[in-house]
């Protein structure tokens, strides 16, 4: 039988296609578990996990927490706002202090790209990247591809367009790696200023016209405009962005085929996507959230199986 080729989940870039398929197969079993009346299994009852969130998060943090609890792991939570980081402690010191309390695994979100890799090379625990700045958000990409696989049967050969703030999005980069490894064709779409200059080197198509992009694709993944990361103006106003790149029901109804709509959340209703699209049958946004727990359970389970006593 198989095991993951990596010791930590830092990014999708390090995973093989086989790794991703193994995670999905394991997630299938966990999805059945979380739909039982008793949604808990004892697999990780001797594992302690620290959730370190140096950046705000609702969904990802809750999702990781539920995933850990449903496998009976002990967990400790930490957020930068109420910690000694503010007192000038370094990341390594903070984490090593936590690990001295016998923690086996660290789930970390951090505003700096590369923070997860940095940590994984320096501490004696399994590291799961829950988003590192504008770099990667591997579990989000895994759950996105898992949701596409669930809705359309497979990811291979499907055409996926990622729309919006590509330059600031870790979800976009992880999704590009993940979808390509699984054999999908990927396109990015957004205003010129929000598309990285050399993105074609990743082998993705670039389209600036949302209508053309929608006609091409089977799946559209709509991203949020990350105003908190934008220190300069990339477009005149949100209203103008919305008129050019906002997805409406009318646009969907005028397409020759039915496409699947995804969104990593949080949604800014009326900006990148209108309410009637977000709540339509074509949107699998809430399925993504449900699958997030199963996929994260699978990732943690497979990494935990590499911890030897």
């Amino acid at each position, binding site marked *: *039988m*198989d095991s993951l080729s990596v010791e930590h989940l830092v990014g999708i870039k390090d995973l093989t296609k086989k790794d991703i398929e*193994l995670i999905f197969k394991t997630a299938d*079993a*966990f999805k059945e578990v979380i739909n039982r009346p*008793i949604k808990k*299994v004892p*697999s990780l009852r001797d594992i302690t996990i620290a959730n370190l969130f140096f950046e705000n998060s609702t969904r990802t943090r809750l999702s990781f927490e539920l995933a850990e609890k449903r496998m009976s792991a002990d967990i400790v939570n930490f957020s930068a706002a109420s910690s000694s980081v503010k007192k000038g402690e370094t990341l390594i010191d903070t984490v090593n202090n936590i690990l001295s309390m016998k923690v086996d695994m660290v789930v970390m979100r951090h505003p700096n790209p590369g923070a997860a890799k940095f940590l994984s090379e320096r501490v004696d625990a399994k590291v799961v990247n829950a988003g590192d700045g504008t770099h990667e958000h591997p579990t989000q990409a895994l759950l996105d591809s898992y949701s596409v696989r669930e809705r359309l049967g497979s990811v291979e050969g499907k055409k996926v367009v990622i729309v919006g703030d590509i330059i600031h999005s870790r979800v976009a980069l992880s999704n590009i790696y993940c979808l390509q490894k699984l054999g999908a064709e990927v396109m990015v779409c957004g205003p010129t200023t929000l598309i990285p200059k050399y993105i074609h080197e990743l082998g993705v198509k670039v389209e600036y016209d949302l209508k053309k992009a929608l006609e091409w694709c089977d799946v559209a993944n709509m991203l949020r405009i990350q105003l908190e990361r934008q220190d300069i103006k990339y477009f005149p106003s949100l209203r103008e962005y919305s008129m050019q790149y906002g997805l409406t029901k009318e646009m969907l109804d005028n397409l020759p085929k039915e496409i699947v709509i995804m969104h990593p959340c949080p949604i800014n209703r009326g900006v990148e996507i209108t309410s009637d699209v977000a709540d339509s049958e074509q949107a699998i946004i809430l399925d993504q959230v449900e699958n997030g727990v199963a996929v994260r359970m699978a990732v943690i389970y497979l990494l935990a*199986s590499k911890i*030897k006593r």
Partner: protein
Amino acid sequence: MERQVILNSKHFELTINRLCYQLIEIHNDFSNTVLIGLQPRGINVLTRIKERLESILGKEVVCGNLDITFYRDDFRRRDIPLIPSATNIDFVIENKKVILMDDVLYTGRTIRSGLDALLAFGRPEQVELLALVDRRFRRDLPIQADYVGKTVDTLISERVSVEWKEIEGEDRVVLFTPDSNG
């Protein structure tokens, strides 16, 4: 490795038949009884018993598959992780009589995990165990089967394998004994 067939296809069929009649003797028309096979190889036992039971009784018997991977006690003590199979129990086991099925009963640890896994689905009235092969005197835990196809006495170094017509091409039980020189 020396191979010894301890149950050939003719006796295999007789054994399955006998087990079915034993089950009927206790559970009558199976109106309050469900069969649950333990993944992966217990499912073969379940499928065969279900087929035979249904043809004798002339009615459908409620069945499910149970995966015990997440309940095992040897997680992380192995070199390779255990990959789960599907669990498929789409009925309520509350107040039902449950018959767990597996191919080989050896240390009893699988059954221990199976009981744990089963209780996550509710509180059955009674749980019984059917094992096609019982490797006697090799238990790590105080667990015994209620219905046994064939009892064998084995050494720890030996291996018992149940083979199926659908998978290996022939119904039989084989005992593998390592050569004495290694």
